């Protein structure tokens, strides 16, 4: 427990009638940290964020933002919080400049200069009325409005959906500048790929429960390698059973394929090399795939769950693992 935590959720629970949207979620976000909040659509990400923004009243538990109760003291908290909603809703008739002016006045600040710089970096024309903006440009305007007041905490509900990759890079830069100054961010997404470049830690929420919180570094250390080998003679699956961490073992006549974390590679290689090898291939899978393996589908969050079918559970197809091949031996 850190008293300095910018966000602190304790047993946060939200029910809508009989439907439980969020159940006993607890985690904290430290200064300078980007917390990736991952989960399939409908898992409770937006509910958590709306609780943090004081838009929903918790059924049980507390959400504290900058040490303030999110529901009881929203005004004080929002002075230093920037928020990008999942569906950025804007005032159709107002231009970007007018949005900037209105929000700045509500914050008793003058942020026009900084907003103009941010808009220029993102390639957004602030002179157009919001109703004429594309989805991506609306998203950019929402980002400008959230970031321009130099908040300590950014709460971002899928902020880069609808933004093209080049602009995403600019957005990541802005986010890094924000954390370099000691700011924190909660960044929600339904795919790991969106947050893996910027997040320090990730939390995984599924069906209203937080199933894992993990340093991205640790996840990377457990990243899986896809190992394939072809032998000179037939082998059987039992030859490779009992190796800790090795999963998804498939043996077809003379060919073996399996997935193994880095730590299991040595033992696996020794088993393989005990036989005559004709061909061998070992490639690191993308982080996304590792992530899905551990948390993709009904996993229990301890990292020993069963292999998930790629793409299920996140509602988003995942890139084929081939682009992760960086080592190859034959």
């Amino acid at each position, binding site marked *: 427990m850190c008293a300095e935590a910018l966000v602190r959720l304790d047993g946060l629970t939200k029910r809508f009638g009989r439907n439980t949207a969020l159940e006993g979620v607890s985690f904290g976000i430290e200064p300078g940290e980007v917390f990736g909040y991952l989960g399939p659509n409908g898992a409770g990400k937006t509910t958590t964020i709306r609780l943090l*923004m004081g838009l929903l009243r918790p059924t049980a538990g507390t959400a504290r933002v900058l040490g303030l109760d999110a529901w009881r003291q929203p005004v004080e908290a*929002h002075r230093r919080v920037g928020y990008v909603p999942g569906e950025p*809703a804007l005032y159709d008739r107002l231009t970007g400049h007018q949005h900037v002016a209105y929000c700045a006045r*509500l*914050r008793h600040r003058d942020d026009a200069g900084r907003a103009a710089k941010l808009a220029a970096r993102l390639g957004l024309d602030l002179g157009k009325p919001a109703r004429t903006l594309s989805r991506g440009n609306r998203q950019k305007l929402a980002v400008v409005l959230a970031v321009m007041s130099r908040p300590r905490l950014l709460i971002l509900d899928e902020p880069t959906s609808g933004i093209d990759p080049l602009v995403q890079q600019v957005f990541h830069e802005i986010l890094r500048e924000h954390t370099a100054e000691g700011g924190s961010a909660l960044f929600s997404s339904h795919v790991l790929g969106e947050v893996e470049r910027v997040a320090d830690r990730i939390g995984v929420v599924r069906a209203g429960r937080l199933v894992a919180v993990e340093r991205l570094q640790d996840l990377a250390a457990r990243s899986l390698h896809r190992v394939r080998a072809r032998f000179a003679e037939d082998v059987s699956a039992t030859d490779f059973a009992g190796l800790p961490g090795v999963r998804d073992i498939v043996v077809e006549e003379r060919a073996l394929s399996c997935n193994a974390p880095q730590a299991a590679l040595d033992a696996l290689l020794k088993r393989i090399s005990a036989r005559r090898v004709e061909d061998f291939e070992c490639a690191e899978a993308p982080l996304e795939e590792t992530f899905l393996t551990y948390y993709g589908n009904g996993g229990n969050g301890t990292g020993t769950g069963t292999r998930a079918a790629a793409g299920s559970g996140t509602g988003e197809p995942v890139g084929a693992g081939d682009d992760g091949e960086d080592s190859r031996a034959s």
Partner: protein
Amino acid sequence: MRPNVLLKTLRDQARGLAAWSVSLALIVAMYAAVWPSIRGQPSMSDFIDQMPEAFRSMFATTGADMSTPTGYIQIELLSFMGPIAVLIYAVGTGAGAIGGEEDRHTMDLLLSNPVGRWRVVLEKFLAMAAGTFLLAAVTGAALVLEGRLVELDLPADKVAATMLHLALLGVVFGTLALALSAATGRTGLSRGIPAALAVLAYVVNALAPLVDVFDRLQKLSPFYQYIDHDPLRRGIAWDSVLVSVATIAVLAGAAVVGFRRRDIPA
């Protein structure tokens, strides 16, 4: 502190208010235009006297003389058209104040700024009240100025008093709509219930002389506070003003409480 939400809401309404003002001035002009052909025709009053009593109660202020400017305006504008116009504006604006921003999801953007919910409700309320008073003032000014052109001479002070009561009538139902909108976020419901209650209140007040039950309920009707003391002849009735203002204060308080307790759905 600058009332930013109030100013923004009024600016959003500027075009709508301008259109309403022009329409009201035109309606008044229409009544003024007909006046020369009605004036000095006591037969009109005879005609009204011959109407069935229930009908007369519903659409004409009792005891009004159609052949005088005051009676003509009482019957033609104040009994029906004026209240309907002001109520449509006030109820529509009150219901849209909170529900409208939620329907367009801009409430998230607004509340993500350091603005208290009570402040949003109060400033939205003030915007609705200001708009209603503006429309009543435009109607009053049109009555006095346009009336002069056709010798439909009305005492300006009494017109002002009547418009004050008319505006309060509008604000009472507008604040009810605002309270429902703040407590439920549902625009349709917040418009429908005040509209239905306004019709009921109108009928209760109008038919009170004929129906016993209504007679007992009459003083509860905001229409009673508005018109029963005959403001175009007797000016402001302070007790009625007080009742209206108290009703508005209670409803505005309920709006604040309702909005502060509620979840804002995505």
